[in-house]
């Protein structure tokens, strides 16, 4: 029996290890161990005032902290019945798009593209492909610029508050941002062409089961109220506890999620599979050019799905800037918050997949229960299943080649391991339950 062990997967956020047991041409066992240390966020927030929850919870993860911060605000607002004006929702969407632009460009260009082109990292790749790397960094920077402007800081936003913002951007700042976004969208043309010419390794797999939140309205997007699986299952977001099942893992610090025992995948490829037909404009063109097979049987295409979403995020962000420039922003007073007991569950789509936040509060607005389920935790079982398929397809290869492919597949999921491991210890100690 051969055993392939990667003790620290590189070019991912956080600390993860992978062990694959091979018996001849059969993959006997796959264990993805997310061994990032536990930080106990759900325990920390217990008993704390609702006002502090977003600032604490967003520290789960830096790369998608905007998603955590905004989703936490939305869950608190839902629990306490705080009204959210349409203008706030629009600016929050813009902040989300900034996060997508930053996160997807970081992953596609700095973490995954070196695999396609045969480099150890972006530093080596920059020596031979300086133009692409320079453009990629500008796109990434623009994603951060969006977040700086709306969120007040690229990492761990500080400007977002309940119902509104500390300070609104000026028209000239929005105009400047729009110009940067437009340049990036133009640069993406050539980048999409380049990526369309790269081949993704193939492997024999089954149709992957996907999960995502159905975008509100007719368009593509990252906010909605319904959980959708690619096999037709649906559930309202506030019934997420029964829509899929979480179990504790013996070997990983993150929980495994399955639906009736079946692993499922979340993230860009899931959204493209479920809602890619809603894309328009340059994003729809990119989807066609990159030839992502739908329905997908190959998780490695997640990287190209991220490229499509990168184009979408740039286009949609420009659209929102145009709307703001045409209509202006109103300095609205922040809604009055009436402290009361309540419970709020919100799910949003983050760059890596669906994020669930659920908080309960007592009469004084103090947290009595908290539950956070992150995309990387949701994907763990799917990673293991796809590694099995990949390993079975490439069983004859050398150990080095297999190791490279396995690491590449884990990386294609863009795992955010810090995000995934905050939960188990709390549950194991029985400190709280959500219901």
């Amino acid at each position: 029996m051969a055993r392939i062990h990667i003790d620290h997967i590189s070019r991912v956020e956080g600390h993860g290890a992978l062990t694959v047991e091979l018996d001849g041409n059969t993959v006997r066992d796959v264990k993805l161990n997310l061994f990032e240390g536990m930080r106990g966020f759900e325990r920390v927030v217990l008993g704390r005032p609702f006002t502090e929850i977003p600032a604490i919870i967003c520290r789960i993860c830096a790369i998608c902290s905007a998603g955590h911060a905004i989703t936490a605000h939305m869950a608190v607002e839902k629990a306490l019945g705080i009204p959210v004006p349409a203008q706030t929702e629009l600016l929050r969407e813009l902040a989300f798009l900034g996060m997508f632009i930053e996160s997807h460009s970081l992953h596609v260009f700095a973490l995954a593209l070196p695999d396609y082109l045969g480099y150890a990292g972006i530093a080596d790749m920059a020596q031979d492909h300086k133009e692409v790397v320079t453009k990629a960094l500008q796109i990434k920077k623009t994603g951060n610029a969006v977040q700086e402007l709306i969120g007040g800081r690229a990492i761990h936003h500080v400007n977002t508050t309940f119902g509104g913002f500390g300070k609104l951007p000026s028209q000239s700042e929005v105009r400047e941002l729009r110009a940067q976004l437009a340049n990036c969208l133009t640069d993406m043309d050539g980048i999409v062409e380049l990526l369309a010419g790269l081949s993704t390794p193939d492997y024999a797999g089954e149709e992957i089961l996907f999960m995502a939140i159905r975008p509100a309205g007719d368009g593509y997007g990252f906010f909605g109220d319904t959980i959708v699986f690619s096999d037709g299952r649906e559930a309202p977001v506030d019934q997420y506890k029964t829509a899929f099942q979480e179990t504790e893992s013996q070997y990983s610090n993150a929980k495994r999620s399955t639906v009736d025992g079946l692993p499922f995948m979340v993230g860009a490829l899931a959204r493209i599979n479920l809602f890619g037909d809603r894309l328009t404009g340059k994003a729809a063109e990119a989807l066609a050019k990159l030839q992502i097979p739908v329905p997908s049987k190959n998780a490695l295409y997640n990287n190209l799905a991220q490229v499509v979403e990168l184009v979408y995020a740039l286009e949609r962000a420009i659209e929102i800037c145009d709307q703001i420039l045409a209509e202006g922003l109103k300095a609205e007073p922040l809604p009055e918050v009436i402290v009361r007991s309540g419970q709020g569950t919100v799910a949003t789509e983050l760059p890596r997949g669906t994020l669930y936040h659920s908080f309960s509060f007592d009469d004084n607005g103090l947290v009595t229960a908290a539950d956070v389920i992150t995309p990387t935790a949701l994907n763990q079982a799917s990673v293991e299943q796809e590694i099995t398929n990949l390993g079975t397809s490439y069983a004859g290869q050398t150990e080095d080649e297999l190791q490279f492919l396995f690491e590449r597949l884990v990386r294609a999921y863009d795992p955010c391991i810090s995000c995934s491991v905050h939960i188990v210890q709390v549950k194991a100690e029985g400190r709280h339950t959500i219901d």
Partner: protein
Amino acid sequence: MKAKPRIGIYGLTSCAGDQLVLVNCEDELLTILEAVDLRSFVMAHSDNPEGELDVAFVEGAVTQESDLETLKDVRSRAQILIAIGTCAVWGGIPYLSGMGTPLSDHVQVDYAIPGCPIEKTQLLKAIASLLRGDLPLSLPHPVCLECTIRENNCLLQAGEICCGPLTAGGCNARCPSLNRACFGCRGASHDPNYVSARQILEKHGFSVNEVRQRLALFSGKAYEKEGTQVG
């Protein structure tokens, strides 16, 4: 320092935000990479030769045995060890949950860059100093001073729990400049005047417990030492 100092960048248990701030130096990143001999940056690079280091940047709190092993190993190989981010400097939110401790509880830390996350400008200035062979300058003033210089309205006087008077400066009063009270994410400043800040907050009707709870969010350890004064 040598023409190309050997640098290692490490993350213990953390959100990776401080390493991400380095990656977010999009305009400077390639220049920095040319100026140093990057020996380890697992988050961004495969093929890390490790070995002896001139400077190690370490993010995160020590929450488990493997964090401690990594930290001790890095310390033994590095001439200068720099704690980056409030988790590494104070223990941050992991300390609050009783799960993590700061680097200085375990090894000698030569320089600390606080912040949740660290500020890009402070990181770049630190790197520039190190490339010239100097240790970076510490910033002894609190956020409150920077806020005053920016002529912001005082949120503390307006009745909000603002941690500006007690929190390490270097962010150019980022939050109060957005009409948002300082949450203290950069940890305690040098020699803060707890008694005066507490008196102002009490005057505005906040209980000692509320004040203590807010201050403990990011650098509880600093205030434990001064516990009697805060309380």
